[in-house]
C-alpha cells in the first residue's frame, strides 16, 4: 500500500520534470514521441534516393575466388568510393553477402554474438565469366548465382527461374565514413590511416597491393569534394534531444526483388497482421527496440524487439532474408511486376513472365555493414533449419514454465503472495509461477527485497516450493545511482557502465529515478552480472526463483524516443551501432547467471521484453504492454506467429491485457486464447482492479479453470513441441501455410494457427461471438473436434457455433497426441502421472505421433542423453510404441492409462503385447462419436508395446 503511493509520487515527479511519456489518460500511443521516417535523417535520405540506375559497378579484375569465398570490389561511379563485396556459399542452401567499405575511415561495426558460430561454407565454383559478369554455381542442382557487373546486381536462379535479385532496383547505398568538413582534413586523414593500420593488423582481408589503395584513396578524396552535405548528416535533433553524430553519415541500404512472390512475413516486432503490407503509402516497417507506451495496432511503428528476418512464400518456395545489422533499421515493402526489374546478364539465363507478381523489399540501416544471409528454402521447414543453423534454436524451457503464470504489478507482500497461492488451491485452478514486479524491491534496486513487505523472501519461496510451485522476480537492467547500493557501486568501480558522449557514466531516468545502464555488450559486464545470480549473492533467492528482464530496449524515460542516446558509448562503439542488441545481451547474461548458480545443471527461465535475432536461445518473450481490448487479444495471434517464424517460439501476450480493465467475457476469452499460446501468463497494470481468476463470479471462474486445465492436460504435447523447436528451430505455434505451403487459402490466415502439425486452434477473439468460421486445410484430410471428437473434412470453411465455454480446437486426422488428463495443482505434481493417448485416425486409418519425456528441468537430456523419445504409430489396426532414440536412457514412472481412438470402429477384442507376453484389454466403443476407448494398457511410457484391435 505504501509503495503504491511512492511509485505514484515518482511518476508525478517524472511528469513534473516533463519526462514520462503521456500518461494523461490518452489511450493510444503518443506518436510524437517516436520518429517517423521523415524525422530520422538517414531514413529520409535513403528513402528519397532516386530509382535511377545504380551507380555501383563491379570491378571484375578485382575478383578473387577461394574455395568458398568470392571477393570483388564495387565502385560508386559518382564518388569513386570503393566497396568490398564478399560472397559465401553456406551449408544448407544459403548464400551470405557482405558489403563493406574497401577502406573505411574507421572500422564499421559488425554484429557479434548473434551467430552461433562462423557459418560453415561450401565450395563456390565459377561456371562462366565474361565482361558482363560471372556465373557461379551454388551446388549440384540448377542453382546459380549470376553477377552482373555494370550496374552491379546479383541474381539467384534455379534453372530458368529467378528466385531473388539483389540490387535489382539499384538501391544499394553506402554512406562511406568521411572526415568532418569543419575539422582539419590532415588530422582526420592521419586518424584514418591510423585506423587503416590498426585494421590491417587484425584483418587478413585487406592485404591488397598498395598500388590499388593509392588510386582508391585519391579517387575517394576527389569524390568527396563533389559529395553534397545534407542536413542531419552531422547532427540531428529530435524534440529536445540532440544526436551529436561525431562520425557523420554512415547508413547503408540494399534492395531485394522476389519474383513470383506476393506474401512476405516476419521482421517482428510490429503490432501487425501476419502477412506484411506494402509500405509505399506510409512509413516503412521500423526495427528499433523501443518502450512504446500504449502501442497502436496495425502499424509499422517499432516496438520492443527486432528480428531482421523476412520470409517470402509462394506455393513453390519459401525463402528468407536475414539482414544482420543491429542499428536502427527500416524495411520498405512494395508490390511490383517481375518484368520491370529484370535486366542484365541474368536475362541470358532466365526468363520471368513480365506480368508475374513480384515483391520488392528494401532494407536500410543507420550504421554498420551490409551482411545478409539469403536462405533459399525451398520448404518452410528448410528455412527454419537454415535460420536455426545461423542463430540457434529456441532454448528448451523447463516443463513447468509451459504451465500457467500468474503475474500482476504488483503482488504487494508475502501475505498477498500466500493468499493468491491459496486462492488457486481453493478454486482448484492449477498454476506454476507467481510473479513479482518492480515493487518487490527496495526502492527499485534490483536484486534486493522491500524490507517491510518482503522481509523473509526465502520463507515465501519455501512456501511455494511446498506446493511444488515457483516464482519469477523482475530484474531490470537500469541500476539506481545510489552510493549505498552494492550493485551500483560495483559496476561503477569496475567501470562497466555505458558512457555518455563525453566519457562520463551515462545516466538516464527510469523506475528508480536516476539510473546507470550497465554495458552488457562487454563480456566482462555479462560475466559479472551472471555471477550476481549466485544464491549467496542474490539474497533471498532460491532454486525456485527465476528472472524477468523488463525495460531492456533499453528504456530511458528522459532519452530520445524513451531510449538511450545514440551517441552514448559502449567501449569503442556508439550506441547507434549496437542498439537492437542491448536487450539480447541482458537476457543472455541473466540466463547464464541462472545456469551458473546451479552449477550448470538446471535449465534457466528468463523472460525478456526486448529481443533480437538469436534471443530465442535465452528464454521467452512477451508482446509488452498491451491493453484489455478485443483488438489486442486478436493481434496476439499474428504477433506470436511472426515471432515463431523467426525462431522465437516461446511467445505470449499478457492475458487480460496490461492496461485497462477487461470485462469478464474478454478475460475469459483471453484465458482461452492464452491457454493455447506458448507463453501463458496473466498480467495487469498497477492501477487496475484485481483480476485473479476467481474474482468474476463462479461461472467465469469455472470457464477460466476449464481453459487452464486444457492447457495442463496438453503439457506433454507442448513439451514435445518445444523439444522439437529446440532441436530443429521449427516454430511451436505456426501459421497454417507452414504445414500447407501449397494451399494459397492459408497464406493470409492469422486468426487461427497450428500447434505443431497436429492441433489447429481458432480462439474466439470477437466480443459476443456466436460462432467462428474455421478453415480446415488439407484436401482428403480429416479433422476431429478436440472436445466432441466429431469428425470434419479438410479443405473447407467450417462454421463452428460457440458459447462462452468454447475453444475451437481440432486434432488432425492421422495424428497421435499424448495428454495427461489428471489435473494437479502444478505441472510438477503431474510428473509421474499416466498418459492418455488421443489417436485421431486419417481417412486411411493410420496415425502417428511422438512422446517425449525427461526430468523436465535439467540439462541431463542433452549432456547425459537422459530422455525418452518414442514414436507412436497406428496402422493396420495396431498401435505401437517404438524407440526413436536408441542411445538415450531415462526411467519414468508414467504409464499409459488410456487410449482413445477417434474415428475408430468397434473391435471384437483388444490385445496388449509387450515383452512379457500378451493380455486382453477392456474397451468400450461409442458408436455415436466413433470413439473407441481402450482401458488401462498399464504399460510404462518408456517401454515397447503394441495394442492390437481385432
Amino acid at each position, binding site marked *: 500500500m505504501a509503495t503504491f503511493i511512492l511509485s505514484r509520487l515518482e511518476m508525478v515527479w517524472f511528469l513534473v520534470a516533463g519526462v514520462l511519456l503521456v500518461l494523461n489518460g490518452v489511450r493510444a500511443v503518443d506518436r510524437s514521441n517516436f520518429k517517423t521516417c521523415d524525422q530520422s535523417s538517414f531514413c529520409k535520405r535513403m528513402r528519397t534516393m532516386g530509382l535511377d540506375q545504380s551507380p555501383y559497378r563491379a570491378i571484375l579484375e578485382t575478383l578473387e575466388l577461394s574455395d568458398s569465398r568470392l571477393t570483388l570490389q564495387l565502385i560508386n561511379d559518382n564518388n569513386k568510393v570503393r566497396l568490398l563485396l564478399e560472397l559465401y556459399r553456406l551449408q544448407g542452401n544459403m548464400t551470405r553477402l557482405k558489403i563493406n567499405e574497401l577502406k573505411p575511415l574507421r572500422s564499421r561495426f559488425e554484429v557479434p554474438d548473434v551467430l552461433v558460430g562462423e557459418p560453415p561454407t561450401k565450395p563456390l565454383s565459377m561456371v562462366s565469366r565474361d565482361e558482363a559478369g560471372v556465373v557461379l554455381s551454388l551446388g549440384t542442382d540448377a542453382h546459380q548465382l549470376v553477377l552482373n557487373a555494370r550496374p552491379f546486381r546479383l541474381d539467384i536462379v534455379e534453372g530458368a527461374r529467378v528466385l531473388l535479385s539483389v540490387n535489382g532496383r539499384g538501391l544499394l547505398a553506402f554512406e562511406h565514413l568521411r572526415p568532418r568538413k569543419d575539422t582539419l582534413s590532415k588530422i582526420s586523414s592521419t586518424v584514418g590511416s591510423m585506423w587503416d593500420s590498426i585494421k590491417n593488423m587484425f584483418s587478413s582481408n585487406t592485404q591488397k597491393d598498395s598500388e590499388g589503395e593509392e588510386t582508391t584513396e585519391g579517387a575517394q578524396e576527389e569524390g568527396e569534394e563533389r559529395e553534397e552535405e545534407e542536413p542531419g548528416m552531422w547532427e540531428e535533433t529530435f524534440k529536445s534531444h540532440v544526436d551529436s553524430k561525431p562520425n557523420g553519415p554512415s547508413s547503408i541500404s540494399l534492395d531485394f526483388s522476389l519474383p513470383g512472390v506476393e506474401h512476405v512475413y516476419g521482421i517482428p516486432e510490429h503490432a501487425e497482421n501476419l502477412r506484411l503490407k506494402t509500405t509505399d503509402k506510409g512509413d516503412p516497417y521500423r526495427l528499433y527496440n523501443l518502450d512504446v507506451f500504449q502501442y497502436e495496432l496495425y502499424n509499422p511503428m517499432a516496438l520492443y524487439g527486432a528480428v531482421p528476418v523476412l520470409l517470402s512464400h509462394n506455393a513453390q518456395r519459401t525463402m528468407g532474408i536475414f539482414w544482420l545489422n543491429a542499428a536502427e533499421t527500416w524495411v520498405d515493402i512494395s508490390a511490383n511486376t517481375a518484368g520491370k526489374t529484370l535486366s542484365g546478364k541474368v536475362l541470358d539465363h532466365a526468363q520471368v513472365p513480365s506480368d508475374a507478381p513480384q515483391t520488392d523489399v528494401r532494407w536500410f540501416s543507420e550504421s554498420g555493414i551490409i551482411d545478409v544471409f539469403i536462405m533459399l528454402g525451398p520448404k518452410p521447414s528448410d528455412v527454419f533449419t537454415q535460420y536455426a543453423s545461423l542463430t540457434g534454436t529456441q532454448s528448451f524451457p523447463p516443463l513447468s514454465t509451459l504451465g500457467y503464470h500468474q503475474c500482476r504489478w504488483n503482488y504487494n507482500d508475502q501475505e498477498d503472495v500466500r493468499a493468491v497461492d491459496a486462492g488457486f*488451491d481453493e478454486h482448484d485452478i492449477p498454476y506454476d509461477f507467481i510473479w513479482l514486479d518492480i515493487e518487490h524491491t527496495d526502492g527499485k534496486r534490483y536484486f534486493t527485497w522491500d524490507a*517491510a513487505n518482503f522481509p523473509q523472501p526465502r520463507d515465501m519461496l519455501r512456501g511455494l516450493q511446498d506446493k511444488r510451485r515457483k516464482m519469477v522476480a523482475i530484474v531490470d537492467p537500469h541500476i539506481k545511482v545510489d552510493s549505498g547500493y552494492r550493485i551500483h557501486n560495483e559496476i561503477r568501480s569496475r567501470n562497466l557502465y555505458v558512457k555518455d558522449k563525453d566519457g562520463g557514466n551515462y545516466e538516464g531516468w527510469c523506475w528508480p529515478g536516476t539510473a546507470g545502464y550497465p554495458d552488457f555488450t562487454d563480456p566482462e559486464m555479462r560475466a559479472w552480472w551472471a555471477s550476481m545470480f549466485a544464491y549467496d549473492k542474490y539474497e533471498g533467492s532460491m532454486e525456485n526463483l527465476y528472472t524477468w528482464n523488463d525495460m531492456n530496449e533499453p528504456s530511458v524515460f528522459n532519452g530520445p524516443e524513451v531510449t538511450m542516446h545514440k551517441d552514448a558509448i559502449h567501449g569503442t562503439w556508439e550506441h547507434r551501432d549496437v542498439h537492437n542488441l542491448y536487450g539480447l545481451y541482458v537476457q543472455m547474461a541473466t540466463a547464464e547467471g541462472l545456469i551458473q548458480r546451479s552449477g550448470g545443471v538446471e535449465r534457466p527461465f528468463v523472460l525478456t521484453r526486448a529481443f533480437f535475432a538469436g534471443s530465442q536461445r535465452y528464454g521467452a518473450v512477451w508482446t509488452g504492454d498491451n491493453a484489455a481490448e478485443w483488438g489486442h487479444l486478436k493481434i496476439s495471434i499474428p504477433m506470436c506467429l511472426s515471432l515463431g517464424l523467426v525462431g522465437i517460439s516461446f511467445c505470449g501476450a499478457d492475458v487480460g491485457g496490461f492496461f485497462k480493465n477487461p470485462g469478464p467475457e474478454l478475460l475469459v476469452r483471453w484465458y482461452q486464447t492464452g491457454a493455447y499460446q506458448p507463453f501463458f501468463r496473466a498480467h495487469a497494470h498497477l492501477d487496475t482492479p484485481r483480476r485473479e481468476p476467481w474474482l468474476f463470479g463462479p461461472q467465469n471462474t469455472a470457464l477460466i479453470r476449464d481453459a487452464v486445465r486444457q492447457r495442463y492436460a496438453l503439457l506433454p504435447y507442448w513439451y514435445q513441441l518445444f523439444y522439437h523447436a529446440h532441436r530443429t528451430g521449427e516454430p511451436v505455434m505456426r501459421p497454417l501455410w507452414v504445414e500447407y505451403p501449397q494451399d494459397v487459402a492459408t497464406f493470409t490466415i492469422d486468426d487461427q494457427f497450428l500447434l505443431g502439425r497436429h492441433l489447429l486452434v481458432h480462439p474466439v477473439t470477437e466480443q459476443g461471438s456466436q460462432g467462428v468460421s474455421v478453415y480446415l486445410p488439407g484436401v482428403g484430410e480429416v479433422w476431429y473436434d478436440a472436445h466432441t471428437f466429431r469428425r470434419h473434412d479438410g479443405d473447407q470453411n467450417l462454421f463452428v457455433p460457440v458459447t462462452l465455454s468454447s475453444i475451437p480446437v481440432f486434432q488432425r486426422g492421422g495424428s497421435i497426441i499424448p495428454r495427461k488428463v489428471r489435473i494437479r495443482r502444478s505441472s510438477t505434481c503431474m510428473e509421474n*502421472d499416466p498418459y492418455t493417448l488421443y489417436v485421431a485416425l486419417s481417412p486411411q486409418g493410420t496415425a502417428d505421433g511422438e512422446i517425449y519425456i525427461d526430468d523436465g528441468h535439467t540439462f541431463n537430456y542433452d549432456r547425459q542423453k537422459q530422455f525418452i523419445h518414442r514414436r507412436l504409430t497406428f496402422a493396420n489396426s495396431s498401435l505401437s510404441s517404438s524407440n526413436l532414440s536408441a542411445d538415450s536412457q531415462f526411467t519414468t514412472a508414467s504409464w499409459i492409462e488410456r487410449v482413445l481412438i477417434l474415428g475408430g470402429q468397434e473391435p471384437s477384442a483388444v490385445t496388449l503385447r509387450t515383452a512379457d507376453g500378451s493380455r486382453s484389454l477392456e474397451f468400450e466403443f461409442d458408436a455415436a462419436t466413433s470413439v473407441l476407448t481402450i482401458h488401462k494398457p498399464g504399460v510404462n511410457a518408456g517401454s515397447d508395446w503394441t495394442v492390437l484391435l481385432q
Partner: protein
Amino acid sequence: MVLFKEVLLPKCNESGGSSGYLPLALIMQYHIVVAVAICSAVFVDSRKIRGISLAYRKFYKEKKTFLCLDGSKIIPFDQVNDDYCDCLDGSDEPGTAACLNGRFYCTNLGFRPCYIQSSRVNDGICDCCDGSDEHDKRTRCPNTCRNLGQQERAALEAEMRAVDDGMHLKRQLIKEGVSMWQEKQNQLKDLQRILSGLQTKLEAHRKRKLEADAHQAKVMGVLKSPGDGAGGKTAARIFGQLDINKDGSLTVDEVQAGVVNLQDDRSLTEEEVTALLGGPGPADLFRFQQTLWRSLQAAKKVKIKADLRGDLGPPNEGPATRAAPSAARQGEANLKEMEEALETTRAEIGNLEKVLSTDYGSSREFLYLQGQCFQLVVYEYTYSLCPFSHVTQKSSTGAEVSLGKWRYWAGPQEHPYSRMEFEDGAPCWQGPPRTTLVTLTCGTETALKRVREPTKCQYIMELWTPSACEQQREARRRGVHSEL
C-alpha cells in the same frame, strides 16, 4: 454410530479459526472418530478401502462386483482403487487420483477428518495430516495430526475463552449503548424544546424589530459593527469570573448569576442560557468561546452584569460600541442573535437525528463506536478509522488522504453487521475514488488490527471489537447444529 453428515465435513485446508463452521462439533468429533477408528481397526487398511470414510465403508465391502455410488455402472470389485477411473461419479477410485471428480477421505486420527480432491492424492504434497494421501511413498509425509489436534484444540479453547470474554464485554457495551441512546434521545428532546421556544421568541423579536426599524429610520444611521474581540485571554478572564465554583465549566446558574439582558438588565431564563451556551449541560471554556462569548462580544442581546463589569472593564470594546446602541440597532442585533441561535440549534438537531438514524446493530451494540476513531501505523502511513464517519490515511510527510466516507453495513445477509463500507474517498490518480471495506472481528478489545490495499485505492481493514462476537458464536452454533 455415525452422528455427523459427511457432506458437511470440512475441507482439509479450512482452519478452525475464522471459517465460522466447525469448532464445537469438532471437539466432540475427535472423540467419536477415535472411538470408531478403534472399533473398526479389525478390517482396516487394504488398498480397497483407501480414501473411504467410515460412513461409506459399507458400500465397499469385498464382493465380486462394485456398484458405482451413483448407480450408473457395475464393475468388478477388482477395479475399485485400481488407479483407473470407471465410474462417472468417481466413486470407484476414492483412494487414487484416477478420477477427476473424486475425493479422498483423510482419517486424520487425532485431528479432524476431511476430504481432499482426488487430484491431491500422490502429487508429492502432504495434504492429510496423517500422510495417507501420499501412499505411493515417493513423498514422505510425517503424521502431524496429534500436534495439529493439540494445537487446534488449544487455539479453539483460547478462542472460545476469548469469545466468552468478548461476549461479556459486549453485554456491557449493549448496556452502555442503551443509556447512550437514551441520553441522545433526551438531548434531542431538549434541543427540540429549545428550538420551539426560540421560534416563538423569534416571532416576537421580529415584530419588535420592525417597530424599532421604523423608529431608527427617523433618529439615526446605522453604526458600524464592533471589532472582533481580542480572543482567548479576555474570554478566559470573563469565563473565570463567571465560573463561580471554579470547576472549569459554566452551569446555567452561573451564567444567570453573571449575565443579564442588554436592554433591561433582566435576568435570563434557563432556555435563553441554554441557547446562548449552544445546548444543555455545562459549557467548558472552549464552548463558551464559541457561543456565549461571541454573544457578549457582539453586545446585541446580553451583557455582563454591572457589578461584575466593574471588576473587568468592558470586554475589549471599540469606541463604536461604547456609544449607546440605538433601539433599532439593538433590535437588529437581537434578531440576528436569535436567528443564529436557531440555526445552531437546528444544525445540532440535524446532527443528532443523523446519529440516531444510523443502524448500530440489532442491540445497538456498535453505538459505542460512534464518535470514536482508531489508528494503525503501517510502514510510513497512519490509518485512522472513525466508524460511521470516515477513514483517512496520513503519510509521514504529512498529507492526509480520505479513504472513504461511511456508507452502510455491507455484510452478507446472514451477518449484515460483519462489514462496513466506506466510499467516495479522495479520487485516485487516473482512477476512481478510494474506498475502504472494514471487516469486524470478535475481540476483547476494540482496535484497528490490519490494513491492506489489495487493489490500488481499495483498502481493506480489520477492526476488532467485542460487539462482533455474537455473530461468530451464532455461526458456530449453526455449524454445530447442522453437523449433529
